[in-house]
């Protein structure tokens, strides 16, 4: 009797713990277990200041992927960002990738604005048109010190 109640308690505890670990890793950590299929695209930005690996990739406010890696292109001194985009999303080669901020102080994400080109991007292709992250501090200081029209 006593032994079995200990076993039951341990079982309940371990189950509870695993559910919590699962919640943390699957919901918060966003690990794909079954996962959609993705393909990769590269994009070069002048600045990705504030962007993090794992940040969202959105089209019209809908999440379609994630930032997979951020690196510096040693030759051109620009940021090389690898995105993964859901396989069902097809993009033309004139898509514009821009680094945006959610709210004034919010997280950075990448917004894809599809164009009208009939030529589709294949996995591994480079997005040519990009907009760098907005440097809010620089903007604010410009307003503050009146050098907007410089």
């Amino acid at each position, binding site marked *: 009797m006593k032994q079995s109640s*200990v*076993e039951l*308690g*341990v079982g*309940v*505890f*371990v189950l*509870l*713990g*695993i559910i*919590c*670990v699962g*919640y*943390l*890793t699957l*919901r*918060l*950590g*966003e*690990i794909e277990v079954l996962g959609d299929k993705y393909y990769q695209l590269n994009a070069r930005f002048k600045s990705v200041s504030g962007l*993090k*690996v*794992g940040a*969202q990739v959105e089209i019209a406010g809908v999440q379609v992927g994630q930032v997979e890696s951020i690196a510096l292109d040693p030759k051109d001194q620009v940021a090389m960002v690898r995105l993964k985009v859901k396989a069902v999303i097809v993009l033309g080669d004139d898509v514009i990738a821009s680094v945006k901020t959610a*709210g*004034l*102080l*919010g*997280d950075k994400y990448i917004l894809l604005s599809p164009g009208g080109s009939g030529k589709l991007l294949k996995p591994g292709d480079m997005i040519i048109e990009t907009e760098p992250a907005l440097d809010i501090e620089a903007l604010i200081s410009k307003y503050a010190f009146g050098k907007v029209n410089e």
Partner: protein
Amino acid sequence: MAILVTLKSPIAAIGREVLDFTQHLGSLFLFFMWGFVLIFQPPFQFDKFRQQVYFIGMKSVFVICLTGAFTGMVLGLQGYYALVRYGSTAALGSAVALSLVREMGPVLTAIMIIARAGSSMTAEIGIMRISEQIDALRTMDINPMRFLVSPRIAAALICFPLLTALFDVVGLYGGYLSGSALLGLNPAFYFARAQSSVEMSDIIGGFIKSIAFAVVVVTVCCFQGYYTHTRAEFGAKGVSISTTSAVVISCVLVLVTDYVLTTFLL
């Protein structure tokens, strides 16, 4: 001559302290390694392991839920009033989730387990020491380290991460309770921001911390109990002092370890 003595003795004292400290650290480390290696010596002690998981884990669930809920709630409350000034209350979810997952969860869980299980671990082993039960094990050719310490180490290594996860989840909902249910933040925002800001590396970092704390806590607590008899105070007095110092030392070491690990993990 007299000056030489006064000059020399404080330096010598500092040197002695440093040596003592280093030696203590070394013996703690060896104690842990010895106990850890013995976990894997067959036959495995499933019964004792299960007993310890029950004691450290199951019996801490309630107190962890309680502290987790209130920690989350107070984080929600404080975070809300701090963020409302900048008009970015939407970030509450990420503030609560990140502070829970990275810091509060592992640290407070460890400190609660020290209070609940660590102190009684020291007292139990200490009493076994002073009532010669550990000697009795040795006369029966039972390795007391393997018999007493190893199951506790194994159980702590399992229980700390699980309880930390529990603390995080309960805390997250506690923050939701005060932020959304009481102060009226949109719950969808709260959870969306919590999800988008917490990354896998944060969660893994939290687990690394909790495992490190498990090692620190179980080692210090078992060590203090196991070597109660080497204290100047004998008997019940010695056990009580061991228990107190186990709690104090392991709390301090948890916070120090937390700082060190944070610098590595950030």
